[in-house]
């Protein structure tokens, strides 16, 4: 009788354990992408500030802003709208760049939040929130400056 009870309890525990382990694995495998717009902003800069920091010390800036698993820092960048275009994925791309800078910040808006970018015009000063993907640098093969890249952006203020 006692033995039967022990077996019963052990089996119950085992089943519960398996369910818990299974849920963890299932969650790990299906974990959602980070919601950039609902996450806290890590740093706020002007487009000139982040470009200058990257051009002065690319290694240090990568260390500071890029994440090993790709969940890099969330930035709010304010700047002057220099270019508006669309990429192959029908996403809106806005370049924030001062005339006096060699590079700017290229911001891609996801389709769901494109709407916030629709009213923007060239020459306006806006603030954009997004995740940084790579920094600004001069590339000797392209023979040009590359922009800071931000994606999953939305306009936080005009």
């Amino acid at each position: 009788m006692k033995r039967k009870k022990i077996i019963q309890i052990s089996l119950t525990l085992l089943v519960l354990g398996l369910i818990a382990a299974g849920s963890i694995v299932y969650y790990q495998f299906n974990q959602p992408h980070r919601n950039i717009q609902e996450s806290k902003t890590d740093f706020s800069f002007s487009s000139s500030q982040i470009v200058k920091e990257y051009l002065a010390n690319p290694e240090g800036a990568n260390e500071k802003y890029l994440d090993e698993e790709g969940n890099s820092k969330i930035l709010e960048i304010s700047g002057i709208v220099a270019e508006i275009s669309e990429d192959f994925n029908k996403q809106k791309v806005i370049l924030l760049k001062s005339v006096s800078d060699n590079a700017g910040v290229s911001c891609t808006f996801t389709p769901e939040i494109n709407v916030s970018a629709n009213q923007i015009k060239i020459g306006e000063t806006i603030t954009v929130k997004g995740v940084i993907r790579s920094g600004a640098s001069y590339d000797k093969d392209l023979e040009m400056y590359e922009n800071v890249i931000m994606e999953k952006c939305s306009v936080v203020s005009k």
Partner: protein
Amino acid sequence: MRNSIVKIVSVLVLLVATTTSFAQKVVSQKTSISFFSHTPIEDIKSSNFKSVSTLDTSTGDVVFSVPMQSFEFEKELMQKHFNSSDFLDTKKEPKSKLVGKITNLSQVNFKKDGTYNAEVSGELTIKGTTKTISEKATIIVKGSTIILKSKFYIVLADYGIAFKKGKPSTNIAKIIEVTVEAEY
């Protein structure tokens, strides 16, 4: 004798000057780079729309700079694996690069609308490892727009990319199909 040297030199100078004045580099910020991995267990695909490319129509020089963290995956876990130090180590190596040249430039007429088959050879650098590649590409000239398309395969082990154990080592193909498109 001296006269002919002067002549040769002036011809050379003229040649260099003409070539330089014809040098025409076009830039593309509208690009798409995708890859596809097939194993019996699962298919994985990912796309990147943030690469920058230049094409020099007079020399055939082609350059692509690819920000690695811009590859988007359907599943967050895949994206984490892709970026991690075990796989592409994108924090240390944020960009991949192709520095190539169209080797059959005489068969591509950038001034005339049409579709041309191009051969591109060059150096591909992924995760800090550089390999020589030679691939076919299609160039479409339409008015002032040039479109370059290519599909080729890369062996991950060539670039030191491999998961030693666990799920990713069985679920990711050893050879990956890469599709490139750029509009200049």
